[in-house]
């Protein structure tokens, strides 16, 4: 029996961590992740979990401690946001390079300057190339489900890679939503016992972690990291299938919403997908064939699958809640790359929305969908990349 409650996204993920009961958690507080760790700290203080909670003096040390703990040979978790993730940047590459299965919820927030505590995706996009798997979540339920699945994916013996689970800061992290929790026993069974691989704490079989690798072999190590990423998609799908059996909720590499017979579509991550789906329903009622694709697995990016899901469309708008200044938005770049391999492909535009917590409103989705209808009709794109919801 699922327990149905009304909780914040942070609380939902903290509950997932309670149920997983990791061995070590090293963390540092940052808005809007704070509530998540505060709740988890209460579980530790009340002896509800066995976790060693190490409250370090910076996010750099949080990730460093996670690396040491994970190499030690146990289940490790942390969580962060924004500047915290940026400060970890150096260590993210080391965690993945050492193939350590650390799980990290990221409660998405903008990056300074100017300082701003509200949601956008600049933090996680900055970690895009770090070798971490990235799962994105529309709401608290998805954040909870993704967190549980993240442990299974990270710790899979064929990959052993760290996983980031994203949810929108404040919009999801702090707002109360309906959630169905799995039973503790079900979670315990689903996640399973941690299986160490080359643990540093195996004194009888000493291992050296973190060698110097010069040009004679470095290139091969990096190719191995690329190759292991190619196995991730199938594992994500297998884990999702297994999860569906206990959770009843179905997950894929992305969510395709009313896409099969659509002519135009939005591609959008996380919470804004919810708002967009409502607007798409309204457009459908008016006879406009609109749809949506919401990526779940952003790293590795499922290029072929995304291209297959979108290639029949006439016009697409990729909405990015982050910018690559001087370039297109990061999601747009991926979707463009995916579709370039298809001979007949839709027209594409890129909108940057919602930076630093600027609201993404139904009218923004309406405006974009109307533009797409026009593009589909004329087959002409005037401006490829544009900011929307801007105060003039």
């Amino acid at each position: 029996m699922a327990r149905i409650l009304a909780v914040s996204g942070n609380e939902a993920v903290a509950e997932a961590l309670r149920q997983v009961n990791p061995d070590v958690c090293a963390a540092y507080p940052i808005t809007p992740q704070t509530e998540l760790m505060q709740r988890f700290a209460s579980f530790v203080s009340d002896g509800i979990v066995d976790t060693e909670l190490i409250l370090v003096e910076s996010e750099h040390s949080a990730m460093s401690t996670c690396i040491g703990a994970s190499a030690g040979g146990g289940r490790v978790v942390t969580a962060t946001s924004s500047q915290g993730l940026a400060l970890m940047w150096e260590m993210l590459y080391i965690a993945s390079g050492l193939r350590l299965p650390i799980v990290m919820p990221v409660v998405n927030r903008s990056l300074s300057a100017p300082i701003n505590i509200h949601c956008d995706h600049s933090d996680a996009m900055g970690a895009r190339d770090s070798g971490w798997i990235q799962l994105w979540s529309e709401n608290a339920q998805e954040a909870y489900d993704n967190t549980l699945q993240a442990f299974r994916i990270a710790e899979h013996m064929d990959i052993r890679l760290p996983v980031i689970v994203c949810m929108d800061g404040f919009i999801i992290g702090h707002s109360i939503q309906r959630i169905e929790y799995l039973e503790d026993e079900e979670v315990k069974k689903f996640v399973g016992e941690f299986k160490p691989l080359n643990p540093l704490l195996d004194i009888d079989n000493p291992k050296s972690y973190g060698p110097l690798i010069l040009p004679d072999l470095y290139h091969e190590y990096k190719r191995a990291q690329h190759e292991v990423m190619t196995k991730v998609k199938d594992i994500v799908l297998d884990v999702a299938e297994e999860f569906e059996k206990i959770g009843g909720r179905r997950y894929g590499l992305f969510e395709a919403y009313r896409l099969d017979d659509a002519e135009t579509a939005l591609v959008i991550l996380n919470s804004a997908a919810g708002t967009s789906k409502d607007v798409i329903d309204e457009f459908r009622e008016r006879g406009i064939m609109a749809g949506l694709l919401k990526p779940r697995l952003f790293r590795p990016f499922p290029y072929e699958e995304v291209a297959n899901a979108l290639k029949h469309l006439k016009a697409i708008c990729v909405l990015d809640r982050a910018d690559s200044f001087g370039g297109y938005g990061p999601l747009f770049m991926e979707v463009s790359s995916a579709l370039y391999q298809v001979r007949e492909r839709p027209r594409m535009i890129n909108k940057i929305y919602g930076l630093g917590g600027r609201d993404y409103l139904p009218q923004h989705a309406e405006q974009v969908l109307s533009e797409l209808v026009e593009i589909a009709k004329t087959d002409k794109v005037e401006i490829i990349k544009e900011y929307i919801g801007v105060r003039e």
Partner: protein
Amino acid sequence: MAPVRTLPVLTLKELSKKEDLFTHGHRLCSGCGAPIVVKMVLFASDHPVVACSSTGCLEVSSCISQHTAWKIPWIHSAFENAAATVAGVESMYRVLKKKHRINKEIKFVTFCGDGGTYDIGLQSLSGAMERGHDMLYICYDNGAYMNTGIQRSSATPLGADTTTSPVGSVIPGKTQQRKNLTRIMAAHDIPYVAQASISHWLDLMKKVRKALEIKGPKFMNILSPCNRGWRSRTDDAILLSRLAVDTCYWPLYEVENGAIRITFKPKEKKPIVDFLKPQGRFKHLFRPENEWIIKKFQEDVDREWERLQKEALP
């Protein structure tokens, strides 16, 4: 406080029977102090040790591709975070021990240079000490960023010629005195802090053995001559270490639960020039216009030695 077990002091005969856990084949320069530090520390331990190094000479020279000089578990992750990294391993150890998945008594030791300790790693070191991890942090202090080519660090002594504090027509080498890190660590009120030197191996090993028997965070600063950076002879690491102690440039002392004890007092305190003279990095100090630097250097050493003697237990 749990009583500290007093350990029998190792004799050379017993030491010669112990296995060398840091093997030859590493690529540190001949005459480097760092491998001597590592060997002495590992010989001193009666327990299995998990070691951690920050990025630096020792790290890049001891584990390259498929070859490792470490016969014990060893981890390197980055430059500024050895204390945080080993704190993670130690935390995992505590959990797994509680869960009875590990039964052995394991000790956690870092070996980091002065750059990774005094400078870029000071924050993570301070944090790990404050949190009380059961670990021994060892700094092998060679007084500059030797790995990247002898750049000044906050451990570089006054007047030293380094590649980023070069002796020029206007500036006579490093213009600042070195940071007194051992005192900074003692100010953390951790159970054990010590300064040691490879020239006084028995003193060094006793300190390591004592430190490893104490629960909680411990810090040891060990002088580690670098003939490339100090511009000295390749076979004088021990000689220079001894001169550092005899001139009181590098006093041997320990701070146990706040109480300072000087562990070696030179019979006759030698003038600092005896330590400076054999090192090319101080050559320019012997020009008449730089006389004031030697004078200041001597005053700094004297003041610290006086202060230590005043504060130390009789």
